[in-house]
């Protein structure tokens, strides 16, 4: 009976490793920016190129930064949920129009709706790199002091919005 103990233990540990490992999503890379100050940026506004929008403009409030592009198919998926969030008026949403054509971005918003307080136009994607963007859409939750508190990679879903974002926003607003 003792002979079976060692192979059994090895098998059990293998099962545990597989149970954890196979459920991890390699596309969800933990962001090193969580807990750090939002990367400073200053870009033209999408709709009004003569005006600028910078990270400092949003200081003092809890806000969301949503990275999107008219070329991005997954962004279409999350867009209705973003519109719902916008209608809730729970938090200002700033858009970062990433690697897009200005007119394409404007047209896309006109066609599908604009949930953004303002969209920053990041044509060459440099600001995106500062945010560690690799899989659009991505959404950041930033607190009143400008610290990034949460990053969601991929399209938002109602579960994420109600389960993760809204509670966090409520908590950050209380502080």
């Amino acid at each position, binding site marked *: 009976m003792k002979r079976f103990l060692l192979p059994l233990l090895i098998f059990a540990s293998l099962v545990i490793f597989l149970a954890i490992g196979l459920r991890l999503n390699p596309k969800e*890379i933990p962001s*090193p920016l969580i807990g750090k100050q939002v990367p400073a940026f200053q870009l033209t506004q999408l709709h009004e190129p003569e005006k600028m929008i910078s990270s400092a403009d949003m200081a003092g409030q809890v806000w969301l930064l949503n990275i999107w592009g008219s070329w991005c198919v997954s962004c279409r998926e999350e867009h209705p949920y973003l519109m719902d969030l916008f209608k809730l008026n729970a938090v200002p949403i700033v858009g970062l129009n990433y690697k897009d054509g200005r007119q394409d971005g404007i047209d896309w918003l006109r066609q599908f709706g604009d949930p953004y307080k303002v969209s920053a136009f990041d044509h060459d994607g440099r600001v995106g*790199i500062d945010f560690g963007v*690799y*899989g659009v859409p991505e959404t950041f939750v930033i607190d009143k002091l400008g610290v990034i508190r949460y990053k969601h990679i991929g399209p938002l879903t109602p579960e994420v919005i109600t389960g993760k974002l809204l509670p966090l926003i409520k908590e950050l607003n209380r502080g």
Partner: protein
Amino acid sequence: MDKFSMNQLVLSFLLVVTPLLVNAEEATSTAPDPVLDKRVLAIAEELRCLVCQNQTIADSDAALAVDLRKQVREKLAQGMSDRDVTEFMVERYGDFVLYRPPVKTTTWLLWFGPFLFLAGGLLVLGRALKRRAHTAPTAFLSEAERRRVATLLGTITESKENT
């Protein structure tokens, strides 16, 4: 046609056509700089493309890889050291952007695990072999059995001789 020599014609043709052949993408510095390019390549081969995660940004054709290569080149041209450029990327994308995982306490298992498994396997093998050597039977057959075999074989050879 004598007014224009052949050379002039060819030259004007080239002057007109060459700008049309230039790639329309914006470049940071078009001057070829082999030293800089080598440094860019060296760093690019140590950074992972986060879109196609099994490739380096040197190999990958993803838009992000192209952008990151451009950033590396720019930062190097601005005078950043190789280490600082790598640090720049890790600050934004985390340790995963390094193609070779750093050796930290959190990655010890990753780096040394295979050797641990090898050592463990050899241990088990060693023990199993030793055990087998100790429990080897001294005789294959008992005395009585051996005599029986001899008689049986003897019988067979006897009968063979008779035929």
